């Protein structure tokens, strides 16, 4: 092991960023807290805000995971760009599909499912 390290030390550069353990633990703690909040929030009736609140919390959690556990904060910007582009494609897909389905609902036959087993 040490020999491999030694042969490399000639280059003198450490690839990748090392995240300190306090940051990892803090991230974990924050994730647990947000999980608690998101569960607790479901017992408060906020109407449609519940969904949005849950999604905002989930996104904060996701951002924590991505930035610290996945090192994206310290990583090359191109990697972040790749991730953001994939999320944009996801958003595009969701938005256009939802926009269409919302508009054609009135032509659907409510509850149509003749192939379901009789019950």
């Amino acid at each position, binding site marked *: 092991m040490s020999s491999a390290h030694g042969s490399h030390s000639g280059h003198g550069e450490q690839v990748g960023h090392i995240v300190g353990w306090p940051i990892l633990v803090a991230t974990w703690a924050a994730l647990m807290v947000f999980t608690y909040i998101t569960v607790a929030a479901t017992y408060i009736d906020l109407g449609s805000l519940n969904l949005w609140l849950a999604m905002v919390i989930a996104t904060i959690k996701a951002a924590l995971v991505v930035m610290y556990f996945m090192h994206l904060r310290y990583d090359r910007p191109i990697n972040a760009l790749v991730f953001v582009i994939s999320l944009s494609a996801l958003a595009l897909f969701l938005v256009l599909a939802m926009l269409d389905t919302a*508009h054609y609902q009135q032509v659907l036959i409510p509850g149509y499912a003749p192939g379901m087993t009789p019950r």
Partner: protein
Amino acid sequence: MATQTSTIPAGGLAGARDSAEKNYLNESKGILSWLTTLDHKRIGVMYLICILGAFFLGGMSAVLLRTEHLSGTPNLMEADAYNKLFTLHGAVMIFLFIIPGIPAALGNFVLPIMLGAKDVAFPRLNLCSWYLWVIGAVCALLSLLLGGFDTGWTFYTPYSTSSPFQGVIPIVTGAFILGFSSIFTGLNFIVTIHKLRAPGMGWFKMPLFLWGLYSTALIQVLATPVLGITLLLLIVERALGVGIFDPALGGDPVLFQHFFWFYSHPAVYIMIVPAMGVISELISVFSRKHIFSYQFIAYSSIAIAAFGFIVWGHHMFTSGQSELMNTIFSLLTFSVAIPSAIKVFNWTATMYKGSIVFKTPQLYALSFLFLFGIGGLTGLFLATLSTDIHLHDTYFVVAHFHYVMFGGTVIAFLGALHYWWPKMFGKMYNENWGRVACLLIFIGFNMTFFTQFAMGSQGMPRRYFNYTEGYTTYHVVSTIGSYIMAVGFFVIAGYLYYSLIRGRKAPDNPWGGASLEWQTSSPPPVENFKKDPIVGDPYDFSNLKYDPAIGGYVRVDAQGVAS
């Protein structure tokens, strides 16, 4: 092999090449050395062999389909057989041939060389892609053994979940696997282009073919996973009855179409954008002139890839998509016309004041301009809401996408194959036969598909086994055209095969191309370059001069010799 290469003095073989020279083809022998190779060139060649096999299968089924249409009554097969055959034709041509065609076969071969790299970033993954292709192809064959499939390559629910033929699940599984083959190729290319460019190879020093491949790879990575999940849902829908798309179980079949086209429209650009890249190379090299407006062509490739994601709904104008979305998608669809038009104008302008040589690849490039012109312009009829209502699902659409997919991609593929053939195999083919074949294909193609425009706008629906009286003449002319095309392809197969065994030895740079692959030997050595290539403007031909002694071009200025 490291020892082998080190024993050859670098650059010492410039003039005196003999059969003992080591290259990627003869570096090791035996089928196993090919099946386990990590060399992108060998993987490219293996892809080439495989996709040509698929092309043969798809082409033969097309000829059978056309033969069936010689009359409006059954004469060769029954309805079920016809339906299975057109589905096979579509699925094979799209998933096994066109999508991997230019990127995986030719792109694999030239991309790293054009970048001045030794290989793609992930050689193992590259080999894995090829094996996935093979597995996908095996699934397709398996599905034929299990009774075939007649859903159309679009697999629309609920027909695909209720079709009586048992080949549906295997072919869908096959397409799913082929999707991952495509994803891995795209992923590999993106990383290679980002990270493995030779010193001095800036983004705007890359040949436009690489911009085409890069745009394609972006689509492959971002769109193909959606096909994956769509097909996965289709498999569980058919096997287990998960009713997300099947109306009988409360699902929504129009949602399936959104899913499917979210991939399959961008996939159309997976097919055509690399072809456009090829044409940028050919037109410039054979006009001996710098490509007109490099940056506009480069950006228009990216623009097409990006716009490709927001136009999928134009496949659904009559499907029950809401009027609002029809309108939005129609508007967005026209956005794709602009970068395509820019490219066509720029190619034409490149020829202005050039010195145009009519070698076989250039004939294909000119055919491309003609045919893609028709294919692109007829797209306007289909993007326009009111006219699409009439033309949707008729032969007009069939003709349109064949003008783009065949007149565009396949013609460009043939051009590229002829262009890089000497580089890949180190042999020249017979130019005259090449020109004859190109002419046959051009004439046959127009006979086959131009008639289909008229027949479609007259109201002939697609995927019809029978047809009513009025369409007979069109069908007969179309069928004869397809025979002429078939002859053209057999001629190509003949002289290319002949060139492999008897062909004249190819010089390093037979066409006078300025991109890096022409700086290495034909065929290239395993490590691609014996000495580091000189990175310059890929469209600057001023320092290349034809040398009749070797039948190719050589660098003439002092700088070139010095390095």
